């Protein structure tokens, strides 16, 4: 498998197969156990994603099923990515091949970390996510199309569900401005003005 290139520029839609990792409150320690954080680059993390969960059920974990190898969409349930702020978690998912996540809800830091990598986290109702998950269970190898504006997912048989994507992140992804650094650097003068007005930086 050759890993597709990492997200760059405007992101309007994604096509690919999907992998379902079901369950609420899946924390970032499970996505990437702490021992794999002993590194000074993110390079090797793709192979270690969900390492302990996968070792617990060799060959049976959703990420190890042959029909989803090369999948680029991840479907999850509630509060995905809770716990540690480690960006290693979305980095590991991205390096495995994930380019978008659909779930009922996300932990905030995880959501922001994904956005900083150009990975949209779409939300949908409990019923929508369950419908999507059961459609994927019935036909796991099918190709899906996910669009950002309007936010929606479409199955290969034409079934389609609306998704939600917060307007700010959607705008940033559509315009390719999801990487905040250049925007932040553009306001040097305003930044120094803010700093000059802060009592704790100016002897109170």
């Amino acid at each position, binding site marked *: 498998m050759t890993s597709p290139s990492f997200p760059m520029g405007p992101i309007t839609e994604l096509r690919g197969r999907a992998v379902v990792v079901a369950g609420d409150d899946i924390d970032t320690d499970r996505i990437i156990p702490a021992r794999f954080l002993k590194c000074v680059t993110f390079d090797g993390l793709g192979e270690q994603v969900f390492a302990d969960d996968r070792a617990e059920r060799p060959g049976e974990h959703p990420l190890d099923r042959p029909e989803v190898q090369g999948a680029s969409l991840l479907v999850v349930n509630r509060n995905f990515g*809770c716990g540690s702020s480690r960006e290693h978690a979305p980095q590991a998912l991205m390096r495995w091949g994930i380019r978008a996540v659909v779930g009922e809800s996300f*932990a905030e830091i995880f959501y922001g970390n994904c956005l900083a990598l150009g990975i949209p986290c779409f939300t949908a109702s409990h019923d929508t996510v369950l419908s999507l998950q059961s459609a994927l269970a019935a036909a796991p190898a099918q190709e899906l199309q996910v669009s950002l504006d309007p936010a929606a997912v479409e199955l290969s048989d034409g079934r389609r569900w609306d998704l939600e994507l917060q307007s700010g992140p959607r705008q940033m992804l559509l315009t390719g401005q999801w990487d905040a650094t250049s925007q932040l650097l553009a306001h040097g003068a305003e930044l120094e003005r803010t700093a000059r007005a802060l009592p704790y930086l100016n002897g109170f």
Partner: protein
Amino acid sequence: MSAGTLYDKVWDLHRVAELPGGSTQLFIGLHLIHEVTSPQAFAALKDLGLSVRHPERTVATVDHIVPTTSQARPFADPLAEEMLATLEANCAAHGITLHGLGSGRQGIVHVIAPELGLTQPGMTVACGDSHTSTHGAFGAIAFGIGTSQVRDVLASQSLSMGKLKVRRLWVEGQLQPGVYAKDLVLHVIRTLGVKGGVGYAYEFAGPAIDALSMEERMTLCNMAIEGGARCGYVNPDAVTFAYLQGRPFAPSGEAWERAVAWWTSLASGPDAVFDDEVCFDATSIAPTVTWGITPGQGIGVDETVPTLEQVDPDERPLAEEAYRYMDLRPGAPIAGTPVDVCFIGSCTNGRLSDLQAAAAVARGRHVAPGIKAFVVPGSEQVAAAAEAEGLDQVFTAAGFEWREPGCSMCLAMNPDRLEGRQISASSSNRNFKGRQGSATGRTLLMSPAMVAAAAIAGQVSDVRQLLPT
């Protein structure tokens, strides 16, 4: 929409600009870094040809990977050594202060910044670590960030952020003897759930909060993130100011009086508007222990592991997963659960008062046969203060190991870890599957005094029975 809260005031003071996507550029007053989440950020800066905009506003220490037995360099683990060496090189290259091993100021990042007086009311504090919420104890707006955001703070001293809603958690009454801030926060998370705080900042207020020491407030705010709230805070008051006065980086002289006046003005006023409010009664809270695999799966030490019928229908799949993983029987009392390892430490409960509370239980008693029990002070300063009081002697006489400061078995990035299916009584913050270094290891979260009680009994025990009445 909230108005007039400390969160609103601090947010407004730090707003730099509105960004095209609708988020706000927020100035970061204090940026804390450590060896785990910063190396890739420095590498990204280099790739982009950027420098550190305000190196004087970033402070570094090393905590996650340090061994707690011998801290001699080079570390036995070459990866750990490489991480610390990388941090040292990055700090030297960019002119960032590093409080390193043996400096007298090293320790867990959320322990050292408060004790050095770096964390102050009214600041925005960011760090590549979710427990940055700890610093909210001072009336700062403090939150964890990812490595791309660490890069952004280094490059621009600011972040692209969305404003949170504010929920006030009003706590009446008083914590009873043997019940600590840890029990209060575990009770809050048990009540509101691990997702209950998503989208909110938590303001902790009310008589029970006013009565907490600064170290207790840090324990409380530390675990706001375990309830889903990215930041939690307590309004600054006389307790805050008394803690700060005289610390190395706190204001002094005439500036002190001006600082206190400004800090006082930041507190949420009587007319403050909150997006939500929840009330608790501290008096009724018992020592609390987790039985499952999220910090929300907690019960009083005098309760039984909930049966499936007692669990909210939405939470039942997670409860079933927890029964399987923890191998605890629904309906069984949590007291009496045998433990293998007892860990006192972490950014949640590794401060002097935590060690004092545990030592009060350990004094004159002994760890049960076959139990591994160890105490990891949160910082070099905590270790020195504890040793000056003889707490290290109390612990070692009772059969606990007395270690060097670091994050240790909270997340087991150093050699301290569970083996196989061992079960720990732990004063840390997360009982996630595999959290303490073994993919099948199990964690029971509780207060440091409860950990000491578990060590002595060899099983989960009600610490109130060991305290003088």
